[in-house]
C-alpha cells in the first residue's frame, strides 16, 4: 500500500510536541479538569482522577496495546485511543458524548458477532468484562449478523480449559505469558477476521505446553477463554463480580492510592 495511508497521529508532529516535561499539568475531560504527570496516557490520567474510560485490552500491569479501541476519545475534535495517547496540557478530551458512546456500542457489538458468546451458559458470566461493558453500554442485541465461527475448544490440559469461541484478541494472555511468565505459551496466528489464538506446541494442544495454572497468563483473560477447570458456576447469581457494581466503578483504582 506504500505509505499512502496514514495512521492515527498521522501528521508527524515536531518531536517536542510530545515532550511534555515543561508544560503545565492538566487537561479537560468532558469539561472536568484532569491533572496528569508527564508520560501518562489520557486513560491513565483520567483513571487516577476517578474518571473511567471504558477499555478491554488495556491493563494496569502492562503497556498500552491499543487493539480493542473501546477507549476511543475525541481530542480537540480528533479521534484517538486514550490508552495510547500521551496526556498533554490544555487538550480538550470528549469521552462520554453521545457520538463516542454510540461508536463504543458498535465496537462492542462487533466483538459479540465475530465470536460465539452465549452468556447464559458461560462460566465467566457475571465476571466477564465484555458482558459488563455491554451492560454499561445498554446493548440489548448484537445488531449485526452473527459470524458463527468454527472454533473448537481445547480441554486437553488437566487444570485449564480453552474456549476460543469467546476470544476478543486483547492479547493479555500473550503479553502476560511472554513478559511476566517468560514462557510465550500463547500467540496469534493468521490475520484479519481469521485471526486466532494458538498455543506453543506442535500438536496445538495446551496440555503439551509448559503453562501452569498459577501463571499470570492463566489468570488474566477478561472473558471466558482461559478457564480453570472444576471452578465454573461456583459463585451464585447476585454475588458475581459485576452483579452489584458496574465495571465503570470497579475499573477505577482504589481511591486511597490516588
Amino acid at each position: 500500500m506504500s505509505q499512502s495511508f496514514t495512521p492515527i497521529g498521522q501528521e508527524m508532529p515536531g518531536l517536542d510536541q510530545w515532550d511534555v516535561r515543561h508544560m503545565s499539568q492538566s487537561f479537560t475531560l468532558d469539561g472536568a479538569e484532569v491533572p496528569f504527570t508527564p508520560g501518562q496516557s489520557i486513560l491513565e490520567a483520567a483513571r487516577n482522577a476517578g474518571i473511567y474510560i471504558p477499555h478491554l485490552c488495556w491493563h494496569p500491569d502492562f503497556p498500552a496495546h491499543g487493539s480493542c479501541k473501546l477507549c476511543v476519545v475525541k481530542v480537540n475534535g480528533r479521534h484517538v485511543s486514550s490508552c495510547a495517547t500521551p496526556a498533554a496540557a490544555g487538550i480538550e478530551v470528549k469521552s462520554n458524548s453521545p457520538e463516542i458512546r454510540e461508536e463504543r456500542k458498535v465496537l462492542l457489538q462487533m466483538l459479540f458477532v465475530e465470536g460465539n458468546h452465549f452468556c447464559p451458559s458461560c462460566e465467566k458470566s457475571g465476571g466477564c468484562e465484555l458482558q459488563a461493558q455491554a451492560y454499561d453500554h445498554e446493548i440489548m442485541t448484537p445488531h449485526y449478523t452473527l459470524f458463527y465461527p468454527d472454533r473448537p475448544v481445547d480441554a486437553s490440559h488437566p487444570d485449564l480449559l480453552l474456549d476460543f469461541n469467546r476470544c476478543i484478541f486483547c492479547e493479555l494472555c500473550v503479553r502476560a505469558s511472554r513478559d511476566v511468565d517468560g514462557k510465550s505459551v500463547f500467540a496469534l496466528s493468521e490475520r484479519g477476521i481469521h485471526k486466532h489464538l494458538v498455543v506453543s506446541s506442535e500438536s496445538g494442544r495446551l496440555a503439551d505446553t509448559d503453562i501452569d495454572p498459577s501463571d499470570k497468563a492463566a489468570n488474566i483473560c477478561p472473558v471466558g477463554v482461559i478457564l480453570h477447570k472444576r471452578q465454573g458456576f461456583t459463585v451464585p447469581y447476585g454475588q458475581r463480580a459485576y452483579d452489584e457494581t458496574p465495571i465503570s466503578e470497579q475499573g477505577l483504582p482504589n481511591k486511597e492510592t490516588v
Partner: protein
Amino acid sequence: MPDSQTPNSQQSALREPTAEQRRHWRLVVEGVIAKHGARPEQLLQILIEIQEELSWLPLKVVTDVAERLSISRARVEGVVGFYSFLHTRPNGRFRVLFSNNIIDRMLGSQTMMDEMCRKLWLQPGKMSEDGLVSIGPTSCTGMGDQGPALLVNGMTITKLTHQRVNLISELIRKDTPLAQWPQDLFAVDDNIQRKDILLNSALKPGDALRAALANGPDALMEEMKKSKLRGRGGAGFTTAQKWDFCRQAPVDEALGRVVVCNADEGEPGTFKDRVLLTRYADLVFEGMTLAAYAIGAKKGFLYLRGEYRYLLAPLQEVLSARRAQGLLGASILSQTGFDFDIEIHMGAGAYVCGEETALLESLEGKRGTPRIRPPFPVTHGYLGRPTSVNNVETLASACLIATQGGDAFAKIGTAQSSGTKLLSISGDCAQPGIYEFPFGATIAEVLEACGATDVQAVQMGGASGVTLAPSEFSRKMAFEDVPTAGAFMIFDSGRDMFEVASNFVHFFAHESCGFCTPCRVGTSLLTGYLDKLSNGYGSKPDLAEIDTLNRVLKSTSHCGLGQAAANPILDGLKKFRPAYEKRMLHQDFEPAFNLDAALERARQITGRDDAGAHILEEQA
C-alpha cells in the same frame, strides 16, 4: 528461482514424515539458518527461504526453526499464519495465483482462472489430489498495465491470453520444472510512456554521491530542505524534515541509524516502483546511500514485496556491482567513516506491511501489525534505532536534488508539491503504463495523454485513494488538491462502479491485519452488506448500516488501512449512487438470505431434489 520439485511436497501434511524426509528438512533448516545466523529478526526471511526449498512449511519444520532461534513456537506459527504466501500445508508443486485486482478482473482474469481450473480439473483454492497444483486468487500483483497477470511459484507471468493459459496448463500437466518453461513467458514490460526529470536522468552510479560528498552532509540537508521534496508513498511528509528528525534523534553509535526503502508497493493499481527497481535501481540505492550520508546511518534495508520476487536476483547484482565500485560497504568513495550497506528483505503477501511501522515489524521478523505512535520510527524504528523509512521514488528523486540542487527541483511542480510524480496508469485507456508528470497536472491532461475517452471515473491513489467523477477532472494532481501515491485506474462508462468499490472493500477485508476491532470486524461486515446488495437482497436500511460502519471505521481504526477501507463506498454512494440503488430492490427490510437457497446443503446431504425439498417464494 524457487522451483520446488522435491519429493517432500507430494506428501500430505498430516502423514508422518519418513526418516529421510526429516533428515532433508533438517538439512534445509540448518542451511538457511547458517546463512542468516540464529537471529530472530531474520525469522521471516528464514521462513521464506525454507519454503522456497520445501514448497511448504511442515509443522515439524516450524518447531525446528523455533528451537534453532530459541523463540516460542507459537511466535513462529503466528508469523507463518500472518503472511499470505507462507503455508503449513502442501499447496502443490505448482502454486498458481491470479491477480484479483479490479483491473485484472476487467481484463478477464476471473474467466482465465476458471478456464485453468477446468483444464487441470480442480477447484479454486484447493490442491489437486496428486499434489501437482493449486490455483487461487491473490491481491494486486502490480502488473495492471499488462494484465491479467498471475504468479506461479512466486514468479510473474503477465499478458495472459487463452493461448497462454493453455500453454501454462499444459506445462503444469506435464510437470515441467519452471526453469524449463519458455523464458518469454516471464517477460515483464516497463511500459514507460512519458518521461520527465526523473526518468530522463542520465546520472551514472556514484554521480549523486560524489556531488554530496564534495559539500558534506549539512549542505546535502540544506539542498533537501530547499527542494521541498515530499514523500511519494502518499502521505507526503517533507523528506528533509524526516531525515532531520532521524539525524537529531539520540542514537547508540555502536548500532547506528537505519535507512529503509519501502518497496512494498501493494496499493492496488500501483506499479511505478516496479519500473524504478527494474530500470533505475542504481538511482534508488544511491538515494538510500545519500539518506545514510545525511542522517549518519550504517545499515539500510530495501523491503521488497513478495510479488516482485523476480526482481530479487537483478537487484542483488546491482548491489554487488555497487560494492565493487566502492559505492557501498566500508569507506564509501574512500571517505573514512562513511560505512553503509544495504540488505534486501522480502515480503510475503501482506499489503499492510506498506504502512511504515508494520513494515518495521515485518523487517524484525514479526507479524506485520502497525505500531502505536508515538514513538515514531525516526526516533524508535528498526530494533528501536532511529530509522528513516522512505518510498522508492522519494529516494530516487533525492539523487536529482544532490546533483542539480534543491532550487532547481523546487521550480518544478506547484507551491506545495515540488518535482514530478510517477503515475501507474491502468484500466480503460489506449496506452496504459508509467507516466511522469510535473505536480499540478490536471486529471484531464493525464487522461488525454494516455488516450482515455468516455471516462466515467478515475481511482486516484489506489483502493485507499479517492474516486473522481468527470466533474472533478479539472482538479490538479498535488498534495494540496488530489494527493496520490501513484495509482491511476481508469473506468469507462461501461463499468459498474459498484463492482469496483466491492472489489476494493473485499481487498481491505482480506488484507486487514486483524489487530483492531473496527478494521478486523468492520471490513468483514462491510463485505457482507455489499454482497447482500450484489445478490439482490439489499434494502434501504442497509445503506444506513453501511454509513454507520464507514463512520466507525474512519474514526476508530488503528491505522490507515481501516480508515481508508470505507473510502470506495463513501465516494461511490456520493458520486455513483444509481449503481447502488439499482441493486436495492427493496425499500423496507429484506433478509440477507433466500429460504430455499438455505436448504441447498440439506438437499445435498439427503440426496433429495423433489418439490417437497423446496420452499417456493409464495410459500416462504
